[in-house]
């Protein structure tokens, strides 16, 4: 497999120019994620309204291109969606990365699909799966968790 299948243009672009990489003022949920083996760190902030819609989401963090691009892509795709929908997208994403299955949701637009698919190459690099999934686990933790730091080793 060519290394460029992992480092696709979309990923490099999100890695270099991450979207929603900031802290906004009125977030009401947040969680931190840490990958102790590589040192990737991510902090997810979100505003979840009474109707369980993700009004806003952002992240801060440092790490490799894969982890930062994945966080950026996630925030771009789930921003403005209902939490239940976002959770399904997360599950779909994890299946793609871990099991190599195709994205099954039809609620995503074509361009959202393409963006998510750009990370599918990670499946072939087992040591990098945790980089790609860190932000997505941390997002769920922010909504459902009890403020523990998400640790990819536990």
């Amino acid at each position, binding site marked *: 497999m060519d*290394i460029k299948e992992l480092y696709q243009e979309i990923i*490099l672009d999100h890695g270099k120019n991450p979207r929603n990489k900031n802290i906004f003022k009125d977030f009401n949920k947040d969680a931190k994620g840490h990958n102790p083996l*590589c*040192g990737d760190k991510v902090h997810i902030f979100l505003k979840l309204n009474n109707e369980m819609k993700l009004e806003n989401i952002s992240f801060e963090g440092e790490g*490799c291109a894969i982890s930062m691009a994945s966080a950026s892509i996630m925030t771009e795709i789930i921003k403005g969606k209902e939490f239940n929908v976002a959770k399904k997208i997360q599950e779909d994403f994890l299946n793609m990365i871990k099991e190599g299955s195709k994205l099954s949701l039809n609620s995503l637009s074509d361009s959202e699909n393409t963006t998510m698919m750009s990370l599918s190459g990670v499946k072939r690099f087992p040591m990098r799966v945790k980089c790609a999934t860190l932000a997505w686990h941390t997002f769920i933790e922010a909504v459902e968790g009890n403020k523990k730091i998400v640790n990819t080793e536990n």
Partner: protein
Amino acid sequence: MDTKVIKSKFPIFQNKINGKQLIYLDSANSSQKPKTVIDRISKFYSKEFSNIGRSVHSLAVIATNRFEETRDLVKKFINAKSREEVIFTKNATEAINLVASTYGEKFINKGDEILITELEHHANYVPWHFIRQRKGAIIKFAECNDKGEVDIDEIKKLITNKTKIIAITHLSNVTGAIMPVKKIVDLANEKKIPVLVDGCQGAPHLEIDMQKLGCDFYAISCHKMYGPTGVGILYAKKKWLDILPPYQGGGGMIEEVKKDNITFPGSPTKFEAGTLQTAEVVGFSESIKFIEGVGIKNIMQHEREILEYGLEEIRKNNSVRIIGDPKNRGSIISFTIKGIHPHDIATILDEDGVAIRAGHHCCQILHKKMGIAASARASLGIYNTKEDIDVLKNSIKKCNKIFNN
């Protein structure tokens, strides 16, 4: 020295990695093993195996002899005064834990000071942290400068009447800085402070002579010396081993066990509880023979040549920052590439068959000091060549190309 011949002694290089010739630049993490070491383990299990030091049957005698012969080889290799000063552990980490735990228990009390450096691997910090917690001791860190080395004056100025031990690396696993161990030992001797040396990177790449170095404790990682995993060595001066309490309790380390009391034998038995990694220790005898066969002076000279070539070639790439610039440097080149995370570097290099390590290399304090979270590290062994460096250099260029920087 014919590096082709050397490389041919290591079966791993017959394999392709991602369809490419393996360029192994991760020896500071763990070195590859010559066929003689691999075969020795197989032969031991096939023809000589039994548990050691317990039974009286013939195999037990043969196995015990092979194991103890390795102790003699180690004693000679590191020039210890006596074979009792050589203790087998499961790794260098356990060797340091053994000292921290037993010496710490007996000699370190509330308010006492443990002096280490900012260069230390976590294995030479965390065990002391446990003593800090258990005893209320203080850990002082001798600062490293921007060249990635610790000046002896930094150590000197931290020594007080409360300093109970100085624990330092022999060769930094990140910057490659070689510490002036002998000078530090002389300094410590004036104040009667024992010195522990973390020799994980020192032992495979430098001449190590315990009587010349004069340190009290020296921890060795055998799997970094072309030897099997599961074996470490603690060298300790006999005067300490005589007075330190046992580390772990169990079979093999007792003298007499009664319901109301237990007595213990002398070193090394006192410190080697339970069944040891017998085959691996015996396998390690072949590592010593291999190193002695090539000659440590030849190893040092060869690695110096490759290191200098590597530094020179990699420096030509303006996007690369080499971590540290110590005057006295061992076979390690840690680096970062502008705009590319070390893990991405390692993945891209791996596609070309180049194995390096990326991360904090168990040195978070040092990385923080250097203003980075992680680095990529190319580390050398006896089998590396200038051609390996050329492949590395071209792979680094490929990183630049992919990330367009």
